[in-house]
């Protein structure tokens, strides 16, 4: 599987230089709130893990794989492996940055000057929520791209889910700033979650594992049937 992951990585060579966007993006997200650095990094690294699909049709990466002594199962496994590796990198970088910024500036930013303490319950919840976010994106993206390929599947398999997530986030921001009761409700929900951080984390982790398992099983099924 490691060789397949390496080949996936090499296959998206044309996208490698886009990794340079990450420091810029982190700085931008950091202006809003330190707490969004982890989910946004997870999102960015997730987007990078979709790149092998993007190159597969132009460069016929799948056709290359099918001429090599590897099974279709191992191709799917490797692409999930690469994606989980990207998730781990995003999480690790995000945790280091969040903890550091929280320690240095008490989590205050230019746009959001209130303090944020990256204590254990807060970090646990942010990490688990980010992984759940990743799992939802993975389920809405990977099986479709494995079935249809990037050219045919990117609209329903990538652009629409990303667009939907963006709309939800924008709606939350609007509600946060326009509706006082929503702000109160959200804060009390966050407070409750912080008080029951382990329970909430377990529930979110279980949900993430379930979504990823479904995504993996679906991807294996559709890719086994795909024709090139």
């Amino acid at each position: 599987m490691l060789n397949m992951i390496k080949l996936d990585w090499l296959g998206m060579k044309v996208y490698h230089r886009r990794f340079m966007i990450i420091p810029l993006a982190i700085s931008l997200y950091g202006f809003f709130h330190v707490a969004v650095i982890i989910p946004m990094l997870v999102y960015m690294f997730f987007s990078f893990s979709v790149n092998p699909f993007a190159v597969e049709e132009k460069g016929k990466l799948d056709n290359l794989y099918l001429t090599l002594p590897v099974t279709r199962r191992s191709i799917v496994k490797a692409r999930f492996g690469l994606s989980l590796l990207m998730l781990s990198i995003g999480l690790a970088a995000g945790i280091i940055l969040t903890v550091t910024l929280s320690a240095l500036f008490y989590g205050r930013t230019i746009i959001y000057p209130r303090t944020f303490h990256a204590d254990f319950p807060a970090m646990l919840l942010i990490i688990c929520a980010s992984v759940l976010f990743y799992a939802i994106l993975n389920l809405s993206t990977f099986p479709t791209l494995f079935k249809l390929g990037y050219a045919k599947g990117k609209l329903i398999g990538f652009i629409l889910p990303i667009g939907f997530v963006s709309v939800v986030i924008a709606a939350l921001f609007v509600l946060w700033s326009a509706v006082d009761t929503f702000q109160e409700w959200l804060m009390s929900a966050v407070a409750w979650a912080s008080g029951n951080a382990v329970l909430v984390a377990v529930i979110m982790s279980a949900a993430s594992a379930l979504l990823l398992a479904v995504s993996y099983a679906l991807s294996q099924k559709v890719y086994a049937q795909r024709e090139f």
Partner: protein
Amino acid sequence: MGSAIEIKDVCKQYPGFALNRVSFSVPNGLCCGFVGPNGAGKTTTLKAMLGMIHVDRGEIRLLNKPDGDVTVKEELGVMLDQPYFQEDWTPLDVEKGIKPFYRGWDGSEYRKYLSRFELDTNKKFKDLSRGMKMKLAMAVHLSHDAKLLLLDEPTGGLDPVARDEILDIMREYMVKDERTILFSTHITSDLERIADMIVYISNGAISFCGGKDDLVSRHCVVRGGRLPEEKRKAAIGLREHSNGYECLMTLEDIGGLPPDAITERAAIDDCIVYMERRSKNA
């Protein structure tokens, strides 16, 4: 002599096209030309051999290994249309990516071929000419000691010099024992030069499979003023014009032709042209 390729009764249905009980075998150590008109099923058959499409029924064995056994691909060299290397890969990236999948990979042999084929190790794949791309693919196949090459129109779109070079590489590849090539082509002179046997496919069905010399020696070109009605069925690729007719016939069928009929020894080119004409008229 065992068979490098054995295909039995392979069927695959698409809307408007079907592979219909495709069966043929290619013995080890032979170079086989796979010919037929566009859309006849050559690429579909090659894809079926590689598991890129799922056949409805039938059996495919490559190098004596059953369908679905991916370990056979360690001994295959494949090129469909053009090599599937990424545009930004250099020949060194190709090695980095491909090498781990082949236990028999010989890095020094690869570099030897790159230098012999005058391939710049730092040049991106997208900047190589089609001929150079083909040579790069051949360098890869030769470096992991592939026992069977499956090539889809390896000389298509090449200038005569590049075509000659690719044919030379294929010929050289065949020098070692137990190496087999199946290559599709529309260029009959390629068949004359390197094929030992020919498989002809038309409308998704195999209409000839045998030695190159068998194809030529079993057929002749017939020309004459008027073809008798009872002989029309035996005429392959019949063309009628104001002065008479011309067609291909097997030697068994030429008995009973009128005295004005002229028979000539068929060349491979004639056989392919008339067979293609028959498939178009069908």
